Structures are given as structure tokens and as C-alpha cells.
């Protein structure tokens, strides 16, 4: 068992790493300079990814309707905002639900929500440009680009778009998460999570008073999507 002094020293060194107060100094003894992954808040998915989404990388979460894409992204944002960091959600189709997000634990004051869908903010070009601005600011720990339902238009974006965003983010402790219906793009070390709904869980037999209680989901990641994990999304009360 380590002594209290050693525990305090380890905690302080961890704090210094986290706050980047010694960014220009030599590495501390035993210091791992690789950025810590950004935990998603879903234990099974974190296990699948080796701790969470890699920072400084473009990652993606994709799947068909009701596969839990939004729930997973909201969970990441909830965990980020509750730790005091800032998050941004670029919502190309204006589908984000603030009440549900607040119930899932998101601190809405620390989430910048950019709503597309209006004439002045329509077009994925504008959304991608906004993501570039958000990444360039270095203020946000996680930026979600919600492209669900925009697959066709997203594929028509120049291929260099994602490379440019990856280049922009790779020296920052930020994670960019693309939400989509199908695989779109991810960075060289970024995560690609494919989600699939397994079955819905209902309370009791069909009839009055019945509730949707949750949704069982399977997440796959890794090369050839070979690793899988299952978890349940709980319906709001």
C-alpha cells in the first residue's frame, strides 16, 4: 500500500498533467504523454474502446434509426459538461432535445448548441465551417457534428473536409464526434462505433398503462467491427 505522501504526490502530478501547467517542462517520472481518452459514460463502450474516445481524433458513431447514436453522444456530452468542461453540438437538422439531454445529465449551460435547419444556417458547408471554428478555439473538450439524415449531402462534401478537420484537431485535447446513419469518416486513430438496436423492452403486455422501458443495443468497433459490446438504453421516466 502506498504512503499518504506518495498518494498526495501522485494526485498532484496527475493534476499538473491534467491542467497542463508543466506543458513546456520535461515529462514527470512515469508520465504518459499520450492524451487520456474521453470516457463515454457507458461502461461497455469504454471497455470496447480501451477507455473511451481518443482525443485529438475524429471519431464517429453511426447506426440506423433507434440504434442509440444520440443517446451515446448525449452521454459523452453529459460526462464532459458535468466535469466542468465545455461541449458543442452542431445540429445540422435541428433534432437535439434539450429536455431529454438535461434529464440525461447534460449541464445545458456548458453546451453550445448550434441549430441548423433554418435558411441562414442551412447547408453542411456552414456546419463544417462552424466545427472548424469550434475546434480552432480550443475551448471545447468535445464537439458533436450531428449528420443523421444528411448522409447524401455529407458524402458530397469534398474528401479533404475530414482530413482538414483531423489536421486541425490532432494537437488538441478535443474529440470530434460525427453522428451519422452509416460510416462516413474517422481519423487514423479515431474510433468508429457502429450501433445496432437489438430489441425494445416494454413493461407488461400491450394495453393501457404500458411503458417503453428501454432499448437493448449492440456496439461494434475495431477493425472489421470485430469487437462487440451490448448495453441497454433506459427510457426516460
Amino acid at each position, binding site marked *: 500500500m502506498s504512503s499518504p505522501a506518495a498518494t498526495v504526490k501522485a494526485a498532484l502530478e496527475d493534476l499538473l498533467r491534467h491542467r497542463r501547467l508543466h506543458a513546456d517542462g520535461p515529462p514527470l517520472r512515469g508520465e504518459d504523454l499520450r492524451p487520456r481518452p474521453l470516457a463515454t459514460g457507458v461502461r461497455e463502450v469504454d471497455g470496447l474502446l480501451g477507455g473511451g474516445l481518443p482525443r485529438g481524433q475524429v471519431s464517429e458513431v453511426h447506426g440506423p*434509426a433507434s440504434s442509440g447514436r444520440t443517446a451515446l453522444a448525449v452521454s459523452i456530452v453529459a460526462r464532459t459538461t458535468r466535469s466542468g468542461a465545455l461541449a458543442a453540438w452542431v445540429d445540422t437538422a435541428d*433534432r437535439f432535445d434539450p429536455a431529454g*439531454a438535461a434529464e440525461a445529465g447534460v449541464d445545458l449551460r456548458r453546451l453550445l448548441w448550434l441549430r441548423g435547419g433554418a435558411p*441562414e444556417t442551412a447547408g453542411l458547408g456552414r456546419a463544417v465551417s462552424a466545427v472548424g471554428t469550434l475546434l480552432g478555439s480550443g475551448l471545447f473538450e468535445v464537439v458533436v457534428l450531428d449528420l443523421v439524415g444528411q448522409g447524401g449531402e455529407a458524402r458530397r462534401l469534398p474528401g479533404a473536409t475530414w482530413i482538414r478537420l483531423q489536421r486541425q484537431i490532432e494537437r488538441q485535447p478535443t474529440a470530434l464526434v460525427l453522428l451519422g446513419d452509416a460510416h462516413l469518416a474517422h481519423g487514423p486513430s479515431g474510433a468508429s462505433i457502429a450501433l445496432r438496436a437489438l430489441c425494445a423492452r416494454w413493461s407488461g403486455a400491450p394495453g393501457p398503462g404500458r411503458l*417503453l422501458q428501454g432499448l437493448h443495443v449492440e456496439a461494434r468497433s475495431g477493425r472489421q467491427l470485430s469487437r462487440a459490446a451490448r448495453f441497454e438504453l433506459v427510457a426516460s421516466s
Partner: protein
Amino acid sequence: MFGAVHSVRVPASADALLALAREFTPRVEACGPCTVLLDLHGLARAWPQPAALGRALVDAARARGLDDPRVALAFSRVAARLLAAGREGLTVASAGQEAQLLAPLPLDLLGLAPERADLFRRWGLRTLGDLAGLPGGGLAARLGPEGPRLRRLARGEDDAPLVPTLPPERFECALELDWPVEGLEPLAFLLARVLEPLGQTLAARARRAAALTLELRLVDRSVHRRTLKPAAPTALARTWRTLLLLDLETHPPRDAVQAITVRAEPTPSRSVQFSLLDPAQPSPERLAETLARLQEWTAAGRGGSAALVDTHRPGAFAVETFSPAPFAAAAGEHPAAPRLGLRAFRPPRPARVSVAAGAPVFVTAAGVRGAVVDRAGPWRASGDWWDVAWSREEWDVAVAGSGVYRIFRDRLRDEWFVEGELD
């Protein structure tokens, strides 16, 4: 030596007395709307005789339109102020003569609280001399420290320093150009020249600019005026320059620029105690700059932080300016399991729903079509009957070959809608 100028009537201009006093010395103190105090130390070279200085003050006051100015010169602030308020014309009190000159003046000049003035009246005190003549120990025993203090004032004894009234601060910087400039690139360079000294002035006074007005005088003699209010006040010239350039990109001047003026609206500088143990807070300057770059979203009300509204109406929310408060650990536990989210359709999509035995069996709407294979509901909700009433019957339905959706029947219009996808 101190001087005081008193006007019997309240001057037409609030700053008239201060302006008069500043003609003689920068160290002036306003004592209400009718009296101004002057620190006259060091003026003996210009006016060797105090009486001459007093006459100069009277002449200057008359020149500024004061009909019957009262001027007093004395070796204490309070003596000068009381003599100016209580004696007509010019009074010059030599050292040690203050108490004698003050003695016949009424006690009201001290500006006593009503209960204190009433007490002194019952004691039979009418003049400053009456109060000055009382024993200090007796006054202290009856009135506490306030008693001897009032007695000293009545004798013209005052060791408090003069507190200068500073002229109003103007944070403004202007640049007249020899040749007009066109385009943003040369203007960016010139903006830096006016913003940097302005930023330095603000920083030297521990101020930041809450708003900045840019006035560009154009060749056609019109003025192109833009006022910016960033999310967070700042004194950084670089940030202001970026914000102004971003604004000018969307609102360019219609002609070449002949002169540039920037005017800041100052606000006290922020003092924040950072913590080693809490998460780092975003730089307000960088946040303001980022929000300005996202102006096409924020200006249209399409960007900010969502705020929940105190209502049961489904889907109600407000969008507020994004200004994250200092971090405080969030109340309540983080939900243990991830929550199923709603991807809302705004507005809800009209749907055609086939119903059998009171339950939906087939849904058709834009982007959603299929047989309902499982369902939960109905759940009824209504509200706002005093305003714009709503009443609905909600179902969560699993649609074959698609996902799980929340649909509802508007009971007031008897129409079906898809509210969103549960994801």
C-alpha cells in the same frame, strides 16, 4: 491652504463649479451640487497673497455666470467649506483664525442628522461657537466619538485629506488619415494602431471595454458606425480587432475611409480567483471571439445554450447567450445508465395513422412509414387552457423495418403527428 467656492443657487450645469475649480488646480473635490473644494498648495508662486487668489476665484466665478459667489480660503478643508457656505463674498482666514470666524455661523452648516440637530437645539446650541465651546470630555461621555468629532469640525479642525473628484474618463482614440483607404486589409492595420493605445489606457485604469463603438468617417462625408458588445468584456486590442474585422466583413463601409474613431464603454476589470483543483475556465476573450466568428448562427438565434422553460408543454425551450457560469459541481448523481434520447422533429411531422381497437397499427409520415409492431400508450397530457391550450395523446411505437417513434394525437384538432425518433 484650501479654498472653497459656494454658489447660493444650484448652478445650471452640474459640472460648472468643478470646471471653474479645475482652472486653478487639478486637485478639486465636489461637496454637493453647490460647493467645490480646492487644494491650493503650490499656488503661492502665481498668487503670493491669499487675498489675491481669493479675488481671482471670485472673478472667475462671476465670469462663469455665478451671480453672488461665496469664496473662502482657510488652512483646513472644513473651515474653508463652512466659511464659504456661511459668509458672503470673500473670506480669507489666516492660520489660527478659523474658530473665531466660524463661531457666529449657524450649526445647521454641519449638515447634522435630524435627531442630532434636535438634541443640540434642546441643549440650547445655535452656532458653531456654542458647540466649539463645550468641553470635549463631556461631549464624548454623552455622544461617544461623534461628539468630539463634531466639536473639532465646529472649530474648523479637520485632518482628513482632500479626496479629488476625477474628471469623467473618456476612452476614445482617433486617427485622421492623410489618404483615404479602401478594403479591410489596410483597415486592419490601422485598427491596430487605434486599438492598441486604447487597450493600454483601459488596462492602466484597470478597466475593460464592455462595448466598443467604431466610427469610420467616409470620403462621402457620411459616418459608418458599428457598435459591438461581445459576450465578455475585454481590453485586449487583438480580440477587439478580430471582432471589428469580422463585423466589417458582414457590414462593410460603402466608401473609402478618411478617419477612424474607436470609443470604449468601460467596465471594471474582473478579478477571478482561479483554483488548482477545479477545471480550467474558458478565456472570456477567446469565448467572445469564437462566438463572434459564429455570428451567422448566434445572431439568428440559432446558437447559444438551451434553457428549459417552466412549463409542461412538450418541446418547450429557450436559447440563451452562451456564457458558461463558473464551474460548480453539478447537483445530483450522474444517471447510472445512458438514457434513450429523442430526436425531435421541429415542427412535429403530420402523420396518417390507422387505428384498430383504439391503438395505432400503421403510421405514415415524411420519412416514417410502416406497421406498428409494438406500442406503449396512450398517455394523455394537456395544459395552458388559459392561453394557447394543448391536449395530446402520446404513444411510443415500434415501426416495422424502422425505429421506435413517439407519435401523438392532437385531441383538440384530432390530428396525428410524429414528435420524434427515440434514439
